[in-house]
C-alpha cells in the first residue's frame, strides 16, 4: 500500500510530515497518540505487529478490577484507528531516527509487505479456510496452529488477513478464492522517509523466555507453561475448549505458580522486580478458581508486591478465595511419567527444602527491555539505563524526557509497568511532547 502523498506534505508545521512519530501501538502508544491528536497535532503511529493493541489486547481480565482486557483495549484501538489526526502504519518498523538542527527529526519507516491490499480485504477469512499450511499460532503462544494466510486474532485491528510468506507454499489458493481481489504477492518492502517534529517511544517490553532456566524444564515438560500461555487459556477466544494441560488435554486440578521467573535474578541478568507478576498471578489464580471450582492453586513467592490502588485488597481477596501462598524459592522441577510435576523448593518460613506435586506449573515470567528501541536511532544516540530500558534523564520532574531532547518515552519502554502506570506515563509523554512542539516549532 502506498502512503497518500497529501498526507506526507505539510500536514504539520515547519514543513514536517507529522508533528509526532509514535512508535508502538500498544496501550501506551495509543493513549499518547489520542491525547496529541485530540490537541490537534498530526500523529504518525507505527506498529511493528500486524495489529494494534500490544500485549494488553491478548490478556484475559485485568487486575485488580477484573474487567475484561478486550473491553478496555478495543474501544481505545478503534478510537485510534478512526481518528482523523492519526495515520497508522502496521507491520512497519522505524529506522535511522536522526535529529535535525531545527529541533525536528528525520526517520525511515520500513513497511513490510502483508501481501494483502489492506483497503480491499474485508476479513472474511475465505482464504484462511482454504490455506493448506498450518504453523504454530504466535498469538496463542504456540498452543495451537494457524494458517499461513490468517487474521492475526479475532479482535485484531485492522481485522484483515496477512500472509506469512516464510511459511507459505505459494499454492495461490488464497488469491483464487478471495472475493475482494485483496491478495497481492507483488508487494515489496517499502521505505518511507518521514520528517517529524518529535518522537514518542512506546516500544513496550519483551517477556522473559524461561528456556534459559533449564532447571524449570520449560519447553521440555509440556505441562510447564508461561503465564502468557495461561492468560490465553483464560480468554473466551482461548486455544482449547477450557483450561487444559498442553501435554495431554487433562483438566488440571492442582496448579502451581512460580513467581519471579526471570525477575530479581542476577543469574539471568535481570535483578529488578517486574512489578506485575505478583498481581497477574493472583488474578489468574482467582480466574482459575472460577473456571475450575475443584482446583487447588498454590503461589510460590518471595514477596507479594501488591502496591497499587486496590491491589492489597485484591491480594486479600485471593487469600479469601482459597489461593494458597507459600513463601518459597523453587529450585528445580521434575516431570513424572503421568505428566505431573515435582517442585523442589526452599520453604523460607521453615528454612528447609521441600517437595510438592502439581499437575500444571505456570511460570510467572518477568518483563525485559525491548532491545530494538536503541537500534532505531542513528549513531547509538539514545541512552539506556543499566537494564537496557530507555533512560529517563530527569525522572522526578520530566519523567518522559530521554537523552535526546524531543524524544520522549511512554509506558513500559522505560521500565516494568502495569496498565494504569503505562496510561499515566503515556499521558506524561503526550504533555511533554506537546510542550516541546510548541517551544520549537510553533510561532
Amino acid at each position, binding site marked *: 500500500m502506498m502512503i497518500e502523498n497529501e498526507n506526507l506534505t505539510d500536514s504539520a508545521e515547519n514543513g514536517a510530515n507529522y508533528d509526532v512519530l509514535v512508535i508502538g501501538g500498544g496501550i501506551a502508544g495509543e493513549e499518547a497518540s489520542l491525547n496529541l491528536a485530540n490537541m490537534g497535532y498530526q500523529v504518525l503511529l507505527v506498529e511493528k505487529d500486524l495489529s494494534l493493541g500490544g500485549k494488553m489486547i491478548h490478556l484475559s481480565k485485568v487486575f485488580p478490577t*477484573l*474487567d475484561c482486557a478486550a*473491553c478496555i483495549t478495543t474501544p481505545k484501538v478503534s478510537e485510534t484507528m478512526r481518528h482523523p489526526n492519526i495515520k497508522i502504519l502496521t507491520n512497519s518498523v522505524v529506522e535511522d531516527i536522526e535529529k535535525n538542527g531545527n529541533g525536528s527529526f528525520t526517520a525511515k519507516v520500513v513497511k513490510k509487505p502483508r501481501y494483502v491490499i489492506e483497503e480491499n480485504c474485508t476479513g472474511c477469512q475465505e482464504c484462511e479456510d482454504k490455506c493448506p499450511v498450518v504453523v504454530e499460532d504466535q498469538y496463542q503462544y504456540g498452543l495451537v496452529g494457524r494458517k499461513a494466510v490468517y487474521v492475526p486474532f479475532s479482535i485484531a485491528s485492522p481485522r484483515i488477513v496477512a500472509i506469512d510468506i516464510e511459511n507459505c507454499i505459494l499454492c495461490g489458493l488464497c488469491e483464487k478464492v478471495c472475493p475482494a481481489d485483496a491478495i497481492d504477492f507483488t508487494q515489496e518492502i517499502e521505505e518511507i522517509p518521514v520528517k517529524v517534529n518529535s518522537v514518542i517511544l512506546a516500544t513496550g517490553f519483551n517477556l522473559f523466555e524461561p528456556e534459559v532456566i533449564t532447571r524449570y524444564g520449560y519447553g521440555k515438560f509440556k505441562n510447564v507453561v508461561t503465564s502468557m500461555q495461561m492468560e490465553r487459556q483464560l480468554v473466551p477466544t482461548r486455544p482449547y475448549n477450557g483450561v487444559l494441560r498442553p501435554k495431554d488435554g487433562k483438566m488440571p486440578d492442582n496448579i502451581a505458580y512460580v513467581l519471579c521467573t526471570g525477575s530479581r535474578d542476577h543469574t539471568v541478568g535481570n535483578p529488578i522486580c517486574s512489578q506485575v507478576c505478583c498481581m497477574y498471578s493472583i488474578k489468574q489464580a482467582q480466574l482459575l478458581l472460577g473456571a475450575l471450582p475443584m482446583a487447588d492453586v498454590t503461589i510460590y513467592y518471595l514477596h507479594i508486591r501488591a502496591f497499587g490502588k486496590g491491589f492489597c485488597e485484591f491480594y486479600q481477596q485471593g487469600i479469601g478465595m482459597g489461593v494458597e501462598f507459600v513463601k518459597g524459592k523453587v529450585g528445580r522441577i521434575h516431570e513424572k511419567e503421568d505428566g505431573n510435576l515435582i517442585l523442589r523448593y526452599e520453604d523460607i518460613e521453615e528454612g528447609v527444602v521441600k517437595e510438592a506435586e502439581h499437575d500444571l506449573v505456570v511460570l510467572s515470567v518477568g518483563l525485559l527491555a525491548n532491545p530494538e528501541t536503541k537500534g532505531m536511532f542513528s549513531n547509538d544516540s539514545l541512552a539506556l539505563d543499566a537494564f537496557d530500558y530507555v533512560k529517563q534523564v530527569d525522572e522526578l520532574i520530566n519523567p518522559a524526557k530521554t537523552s535526546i531532547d524531543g524524544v520522549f518515552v511512554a509506558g513500559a519502554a522505560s521500565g516494568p509497568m502495569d496498565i494504569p502506570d503505562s496510561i499515566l506515563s503515556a499521558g506524561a509523554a503526550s504533555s511533554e511532547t506537546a510542550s516541546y512542539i510548541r517551544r520549537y516549532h510553533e510561532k
Partner: protein
Amino acid sequence: MMDTVKENSQPKILVFSTEKISDPAIDLAGLLKMHYPPTVFTISLPCSSAIKSRWILHAFDKGFDGVFIAADGTDCTYGESCIELTSQVVSRTQDMMREKGLDPARLKMAAICSVCAEPFVNHMINFTEALSKSD
C-alpha cells in the same frame, strides 16, 4: 435439541445489547461462526440500564416469546450503578409481567463482556430450549 423444534414454532427472542460491551461479543460469535437460533433479534443501546419496561412488554405484546438483556455488568463505561439499575429494570418489569399473566422467566438477564461470544451463544441456545419447553 434444536432439530426437534419445528422451524415456524421456534421461540422468538429479542436481545437488548449495548453498543460498547455486549454487541461486540455478539458480533464475535458470528465472526467465529458459532451458531445460535436465527430467531434471535438484537436491538443495541448505549447502556443496558436504559431499557424501558414498556419496550419489553411491547415485545411480548407483538409476539416475542422471550427477552434477553445482554447487560454491561461491571464493564459498563458509564459507571458502577449500571448493574443495580439494570437489575431494577428487570425486577420492575417482571412484576408487571406477573400482573399481566406473563411468566417472569421469559425475561432474562446476564452480563456479557465484549469477548463473551461463547457464553452468549450458550445463553441463546439454553433460553430457546427453556422457552420452547414452557410453551
